[in-house]
Structure formats: C-alpha cells, structure tokens
C-alpha cells in the first residue's frame, strides 16, 4: 500500500444490503464520503442454469427460465419459447400470440411497479413501495387465475401457452386497466414530481448515448439516454407490429438527458404504454387455438439460433445450439441486467456514497438474471 492509498478506505456494501436488489456485493473504495471506485462482485445466486439446460429436454427447461428474472417470468418464458420455436419452425396460432402479448405486457407493468416501489424505498420513501405492491397484487391475481401461480408462472410454452384463459379473466383485466391510470397519477403526485425526489435524482449518474452503446445498455435505461430503441418496434415479434403504442424516450425533463430521474420516469411512461397495449390486445382477442400442435418429444434439427426479446429490464437473448438430440447442446443467456450492471463502476466514480444507492436503484438490476 502506497502513501497515497492510505487515505482510502475499502468497505463492502452487500451482499446482504437491502438496497442492492438481491445479493450483490460492491467493494467500495471511499475517500471520506466520496467514492473513488466501485467493484461489483457477483455470483452469489449462481445456479448453473446454462449447464442445467444441457441436461434437461427443451420443454423441461421452461420452468427454469421463470427463475431468470423472477419479476418478469412471463417475458423470460416468452423469449425462450420463441427461441425453440424458431429452431423448430413452429407457427404459433394467433390467439396464443395475443395471449402472450397480454401476459408479457401485464408482467412488464408488474415488474416496473416493483422497480418503482423498490427505488422509492431505496430513496427513503416507503409509501410508494406499498402502493406499487398493491397494484402488483392485482396482476398477480390475474396471472393466478390464468395459470395457477403467482410468481413462477411457466405459462408461455413452446408452441403457445399452457392453457386457455378462464372465463372472467378478460373482465378482470379490463377492470384493472380502468383502475390503473388513476393510480399512475397518484404515483406522480406522490413521488415523481416531488421536489425533494427530483432534487435527489436530477443530474445524477448521467449515461450519455455513447456510453450506453459502449456498455450494451438496453431497455428503459437505454431509452432514458434519448435513444429510441425498442425491440418491439425495431424487430417486431408476435403481433407488436399491429399495435399502436409509443416508445417513450428520455428528454432530460428535470436535468440532463439520461440522468437517474429520466431512468425512473421511463418506467412510469412504459407502464402507461403497456396498459394501452393490453387494452388493444383484449379487443383483438378472438376464439382460436391456444397452442400449436407440438409433439411430446421435441427433436429440433441441428443448428443454432439467437432470439431476443424486449424484457422489462432490456434485451433478453437466448443463443441456442442444437445437435439434433432432445436436449440443447448449449444455451447461452444474454441477460440485460448484466450489461446494465457493468456501467455502475463508471457511473459511481467520484459521487457521494448516498448517490450509489440512487444509481443501483435507477438501473433496476435483478441478480438472479445476472448470476443465472
């Protein structure tokens, strides 16, 4: 240790810190209150999911994708199902496609509600967290009547969905959609435009568009930097090209474009858009098959595919190599949170310790997806 190093102190933040959103350990080098470096250590939730994929058959892996980003299981199921379908050349019936969009967007809302809630509780406001959980409960109930589970759904399967929605689901969803806009307004009154909250977040941890590209940031965090990139628009899958929705981008309303407040606000805007999408899908829903005819034993031809989908946290990709057997030869998962985490050391240089919490919270990372 040199003389210059002596004035620095190394502290561990996490892995059991409540605001690290899981079990993330950050080795923080501080000079008093100012951070001079942050090093994330990951792997506490490693379950070798990619290796497990090589040991189970294609349909058997679907429940494991629930456990990637457990706040958005539907979206993970969806991306995996689309990957295998591309390999097998399965045409998904229209009703199944619409159901998938409904579930994916509802899950996006519920995931953003947690992002909103946990971020606000990181910032010291506890009430919004309870509000977020309250609305999420509605969506959980919807999923529960559709598939029987409240967190790990295993609903979107290769070829379609596991079962058709029961009676009453559409009415209940409409009820939720009618009730939800008023709640978003409440969130805004309570938190988004609160002067203290804005002061705390505006101009903090600005991600420039160039940096966002360099680090492979995706999802709301990328759009907050002013880049209009949404896979649902750029590479439409399912029926997204028929739907009318906006892609909100950060405009630097309260400070610089791409600051923590912009990233927070992206999620509020996206919830509004998702609600709009679900409403359109409910109108489009027509009777039909909920799943394509898929044989019990799946043996895709040898080959490789990469499929990506827009998850609430960014671009989730599955790179799948098949050797013609019933089990994948290799499955590589591209987790959006992993890329989003990688920029934290850069953002955290030279900021106050308290702002580190704001940075992690605004990136909305989720650890099971990073560690896999």
């Amino acid at each position, binding site marked *: 240790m040199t003389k210059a190093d002596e004035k620095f102190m190394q502290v561990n933040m996490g892995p059991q810190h409540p605001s690290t959103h899981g079990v993330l350990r950050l080795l923080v080098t501080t000079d008093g209150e100012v951070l001079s470096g942050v090093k994330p250590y990951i792997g506490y939730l490693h379950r070798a999911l990619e290796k497990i994929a090589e040991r189970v058959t294609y349909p058997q892996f679907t429940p494991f994708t629930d456990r990637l980003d457990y706040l958005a299981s539907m979206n993970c199921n969806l991306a995996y199902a689309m990957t295998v379908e591309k390999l097998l050349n399965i045409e998904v019936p229209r009703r199944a496609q619409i159901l998938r969009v409904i579930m994916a967007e509802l899950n996006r809302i519920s995931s953003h509600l947690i992002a909103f809630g946990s971020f606000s509780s990181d910032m010291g406001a506890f009430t919004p967290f309870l509000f977020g959980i309250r609305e999420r409960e509605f969506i959980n109930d919807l999923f529960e*009547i559709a598939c029987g589970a409240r967190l790990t759904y295993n609903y979107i399967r290769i070829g379609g969905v*596991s*079962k058709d929605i029961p009676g009453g689901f559409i009415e209940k969803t409409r009820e939720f959609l009618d009730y939800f806009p008023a709640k978003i307004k409440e969130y805004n009154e309570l938190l988004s435009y609160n002067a203290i909250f804005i002061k705390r977040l505006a101009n903090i941890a600005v991600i420039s568009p160039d940096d966002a590209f360099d680090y492979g940031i995706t999802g709301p965090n990328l759009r907050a930097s002013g880049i209009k990139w949404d896979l649902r628009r750029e590479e439409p899958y399912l029926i997204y090209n028929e739907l009318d929705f906006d892609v909100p981008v950060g405009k630097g309303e309260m400070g610089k474009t791409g600051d923590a407040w912009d990233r927070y606000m992206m999620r509020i805007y996206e919830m509004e858009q998702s609600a709009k999408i679900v409403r359109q899908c409910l109108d489009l829903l027509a009777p039909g098959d909920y799943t394509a005819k898929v044989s019990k034993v799946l043996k895709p031809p040898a080959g490789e595919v990469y499929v990506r989908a827009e998850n609430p946290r960014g671009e989730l990709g599955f790179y799948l190599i098949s050797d013609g057997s019933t089990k994948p030869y290799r499955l590589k998962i591209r987790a959006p949170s992993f890329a989003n985490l990688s920029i934290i050391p850069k953002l955290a240089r030279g900021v106050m310790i308290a702002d580190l919490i704001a940075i992690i919270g605004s990136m909305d990372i989720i650890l099971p997806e990073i560690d896999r």
Partner: protein
Amino acid sequence: MAGYFKKMYHSISTVLTGLGVTIKYGINPKTEVTQQYPEVKREPPDGFRGKLFVDINICTGCTACARICPVDAITLKTVRDENKKLRPVLFDIDNARCIYCGLCVEACPVDNCLYFEKKYEFSAYSKQDLISHFGLGEVKPAESKTEDKKTEAEKEGKEAAQ
C-alpha cells in the same frame, strides 16, 4: 430572491400534494387492502398450483410424470400385480424439491389422477416430513417373476393340458 421563494413554494406544495394522497388513504377505511393472513385465509382460485396429490388407485404406473419432472421430485417404483398390471408400490413426491411447474400434471394420461390441491400451507420441521408418500406399499406380485411372454404362454398351455 423571488426565485428562492418560488422554489420554496414549489417544494412545500409538492410535498403537501404527496401527503394529501397518503392522508386520503389513511383516513378512508374503504381503501384498506391488507388481509390479516393467519386469521383470514385466502381461497385460491381454480387451477391453483398447490400441493400435488395422486389418486394412487387409478394411477397406471406409466412413469410419464417422473420422466417429465425437471427436478426429479417424483420417485416411482412399479411392480406387476397378480393381474399383470403395473402398480406403483412407491410413489414419493418431494415437496421440498418440487417447483410446482405443473409439467407432470399435464403429462399424466389418466384424468384426475395426478393433480394440484388448493393447499398452500404445508411447512414442516424437517425435510423428510415434506415428502408425501402415495405408494401402495406391498402388492401381491405376479406369479411368474419373469415377464417373459413365452414362459407365461407355456404355463398356460400346461394348465390347459392338465
């Protein structure tokens, strides 16, 4: 100076707006959403994926469920009984291992044989207690130990000759 007061006004007014939302919920008992869990129990909807149950008397012992299970939560052993039907003597479901994915229920070819109950409270003090045993235990085994068709046919032939 005017800017200073404007900022102050802005801060106080936004905080008060927020507070207004909280107070609205605080004083209106109709907005209560919490269920007092141990006292008030929630009834899960149809199709809820709770504890697994097997109607062992109609189970054909086909092992489809055990083969599809991604985490090997089902242990199954079958023997042939006196009518040469496959019977599950051992059918253990490890509830600590099961991830309640529902693949086994979908794979079961017999209607209402393997299904999820609406039970969600089954915590136990040890992992061993979390294993549900459904197996029949002992069954009267088939008379001929070998399942060779030829020997059976021979035997039948002998009986006919006598």
